[in-house]
């Protein structure tokens, strides 16, 4: 047999060539044996070196499903592609705002209150709609974030008290769908639509309005170039109430092909009460006057049920409803510590997140995929803290850690 070409030798090393004949030749040929040895050394070096580029672990089945969900959501928004789907799978176009704060505001109740807004300008109608939708979304998420399998005595008054957070990825378009669904099932009182922050002079002046001393970051931890004197504003506490309406529920179920189904009697008139706490916002602006960093603080969010039902019963009913986004429902079901875990709806297509220890407490670090915006949210000693800005995660963490 002739000597092997370099490519043939390399293939032989990988078991991709005529093994028996090539092996016999290499064993008996000093030149080919030496060449194979050199190629093997090169291959081993490349394998070891490029091995550091591999991910630390493969994605979990849940992560793969979440990724698939994001592709599904994106496909439905793609012109031309969406046209190929049945009308029910293509959500209507929604008003779009850009930026981390806007993205968070679309999906998260407290973030909506914390989103910076230029002074002296009323929110646009689309923003108002989003805020209203977000309020309703927060309510429904608190509702359905209750677990399966927990029996509750009939005398037990279910309570929710936020202590930590869990991300629920959501197609931004679904936020409005959820809000609309809620309106179709009952009556919503209160909301965040008219939530106008009141400006106050100093953090000390905000303290009596929110009921706790306001924590300030170290000036040294602030990003370079921002004014170290923040613009301070306060949003007042408010209550959101959602009451199930038997007639509305019946119509909703009929419209979704479940004519025989009805609201269980014990749920008729049941009211979920969510107490959204007062919050203080510190906005640090750059030289151009545009906020670069926003820091929010509030007490915890609580919720309870009035009437003869429990949160478990409300949850069981709501999770069985047709028409809710199945991906969001699956994630909500997976939350174990439901009585103290606040689901945080996050737009699946724009925001990445990871759990992290922030200022000594468990929290979430979120980042806009462009890499320009980051946020952190955590709860410690009965207070919720949030930091967001046009910053890298390390900078956001530095500000967060300086609050301790």
């Amino acid at each position: 047999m002739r000597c092997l070409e370099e490519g043939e030798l390399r293939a032989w090393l990988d078991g991709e060539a005529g093994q028996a004949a090539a092996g016999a030749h290499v064993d008996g040929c000093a030149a080919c044996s030496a060449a194979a040895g050199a190629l093997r050394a090169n291959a081993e070096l490349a394998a070891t070196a490029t091995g550091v580029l591999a991910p630390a672990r493969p994605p979990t089945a849940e992560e793969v499903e979440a990724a698939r969900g994001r592709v599904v959501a994106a496909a439905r928004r793609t012109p031309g592609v969406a046209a190929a789907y049945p009308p029910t799978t293509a959500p209507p176009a929604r008003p779009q705002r850009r930026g981390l704060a806007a993205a968070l505001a679309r999906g998260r109740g407290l973030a909506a209150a914390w989103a910076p807004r230029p002074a002296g300008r009323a929110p646009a109608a689309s923003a108002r709609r989003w805020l209203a939708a977000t309020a309703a979304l927060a309510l429904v998420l608190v509702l359905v974030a209750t677990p399966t399998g927990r029996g509750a005595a009939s005398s037990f008054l279910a309570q929710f008290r936020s202590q930590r957070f869990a991300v629920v990825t959501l197609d931004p378009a679904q936020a409005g769908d959820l809000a609309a669904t809620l309106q179709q099932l009952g009556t919503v009182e209160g909301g965040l639509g008219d939530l106008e922050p009141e400006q106050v002079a100093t953090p000390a002046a905000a303290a009596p309005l929110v009921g706790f001393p306001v924590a300030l970051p170290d000036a040294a931890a602030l990003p370079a170039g921002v004014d170290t004197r923040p613009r301070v504003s306060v949003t007042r506490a408010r209550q959101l109430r959602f009451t199930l309406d038997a007639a509305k529920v019946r119509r909703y179920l009929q419209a979704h092909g479940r004519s025989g189904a009805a609201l269980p009697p014990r749920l008729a008139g049941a009211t979920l009460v969510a107490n959204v706490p007062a919050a203080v916002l510190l906005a640090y602006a750059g030289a151009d006057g545009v906020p670069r960093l926003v820091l929010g603080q509030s007490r915890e969010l609580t919720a309870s049920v009035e009437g003869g039902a429990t949160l478990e019963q409300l949850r069981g009913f709501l999770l069985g409803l047709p028409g809710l986004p199945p991906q969001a429902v699956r994630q909500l079901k997976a939350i174990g510590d439901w009585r103290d875990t606040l689901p945080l709806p996050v737009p699946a297509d724009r925001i990445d997140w990871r759990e992290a220890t922030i200022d000594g407490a468990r929290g979430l670090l979120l980042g806009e995929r462009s890499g320009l915006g980051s946020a952190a949210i955590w709860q410690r000693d009965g207070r919720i803290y949030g930091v967001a800005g046009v910053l890298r995660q390390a900078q956001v963490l530095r500000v967060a850690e300086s609050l301790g």
Partner: protein
Amino acid sequence: MPTEGSPVAWVDTQAERRADPARRFDDLFRRLYPRLHDLCHRLVDATEAEDVVQEAFLKLVDAAVLDRPDPEVEAWLRRVCVNLAYNRLRGRRRGQERLQRLGRLQPDADAGDRDDPLGSLLRLEQRAAVRRALWTLPERQRTCLLLRHAGYSYAEIAATCELAIGSVGVLLARAERTFRDSYRQQQGADHEVP
């Protein structure tokens, strides 16, 4: 029945040939996503790797290749992933230069491990050195090398790079030799005492 939430849940006119395209898409996604993520992670950072693979699958939703046998779809996905990753790398280089000029972004976008900052720093530096060495290779050699060391067979590499299978060993041997020289040069530069 199509899997719940599938993007290809339409009534497929080619259903007789491909009985259930929605389920096929979902199966492909679940089966291929981890390996494609591994491949892209070797080129770009973790977040971008996810974006790249998802973007590739999004392109697949209405691509004609979805009607082809699995090996062709898999090669197409690998090719799209690699091209998207290269495009992002080129764009990121330009973008980072622009953002650094504006003072809005520090150069390293990879998040470190806060519990092990020294180890994190060393790994970041090691990854950077490997990527610098890889970037000295011609694109096709680089792709061959990455695919091979991500565990793909010669047939899969040939299909991805649209090569004759007999050319894979040749390109791989060249790629690994060039990589060795460049990587050693990088390491030598890193360890030089000023």
